[in-house]
């Protein structure tokens, strides 16, 4: 499904845990933003957050599920913002239980930074009640 209706680009993708598929999905979202001439810094931020969201889904959300279980990715891009949904098929998690990786005692932990980065770059980032679906919104910086 692919709608490019005037001033918005929307799409829904099924993403499997394959580096080439993940890269194509990321490129699909970024190319939609390029149509609206988003600045390089925005492309960097959106790619990073999308990668972290997909990575969390496959690494944590789908732990114990068959390797080929796909993640559903949808996005809705306009000149002013892009809204992205990443939904996995796992049991979900409680984001409040993820330790703050910026605390002194957690600084040397090897993981837990994906969600921090998503929250830093995105204007909105929220999980559903089950904790298996992330909705995030990136807003174009003023004047960019």
């Amino acid at each position: 499904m692919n709608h490019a209706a005037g001033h918005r680009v929307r799409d829904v993708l099924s993403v499997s845990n394959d580096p080439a598929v993940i890269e194509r999905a990321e490129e699909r979202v970024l190319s939609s933003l390029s149509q609206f001439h988003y600045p390089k810094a925005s492309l960097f931020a959106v790619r990073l957050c999308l990668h972290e969201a997909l990575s969390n889904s496959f690494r944590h959300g789908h732990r114990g599920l068959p390797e080929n279980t796909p993640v559903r990715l949808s996005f809705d891009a306009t000149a002013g913002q892009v809204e992205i949904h990443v939904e996995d098929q796992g049991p979900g998690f409680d984001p409040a239980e993820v330790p703050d990786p910026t605390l002194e005692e957690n600084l040397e932990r090897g993981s837990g930074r994906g969600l921090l980065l998503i929250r830093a770059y995105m204007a909105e980032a929220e999980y559903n009640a089950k904790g298996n679906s992330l909705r995030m919104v990136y807003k174009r910086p003023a004047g960019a």
Partner: protein
Amino acid sequence: MPGAESRIRVKRIDGVIQVEFVDRNILDEGNIQSIGDEVAALIDADPSPRLLISFANVEHLSSAALGTLITINNKIRAKSGQLRLTNIDPQIYEVFTITRLNKLFQIHPTVADAMRTFA
């Protein structure tokens, strides 16, 4: 030494192991694992490793890559070695700032700056 499929380029200058990445995007977890294994082998082979990692070619970096850098840092500290990071693009440096890892790592603008700080 890294083989044909290496994800890093390695030079040894004045007793310092200089590592540079082959890939512009350090995102794929398989590649990150390979990088971690290759650098770990360099550290293991040196009694007191002095390691400089240049990000000159890097445009994207994931949190998994940051985790690998932390593992590398811990390995080096366990051998009383030294680690310096250099040539980090401003956008990627922001990632270090957000995660506060700029406080954990010694980061320098250029290779020359970093080389001067090795004891």
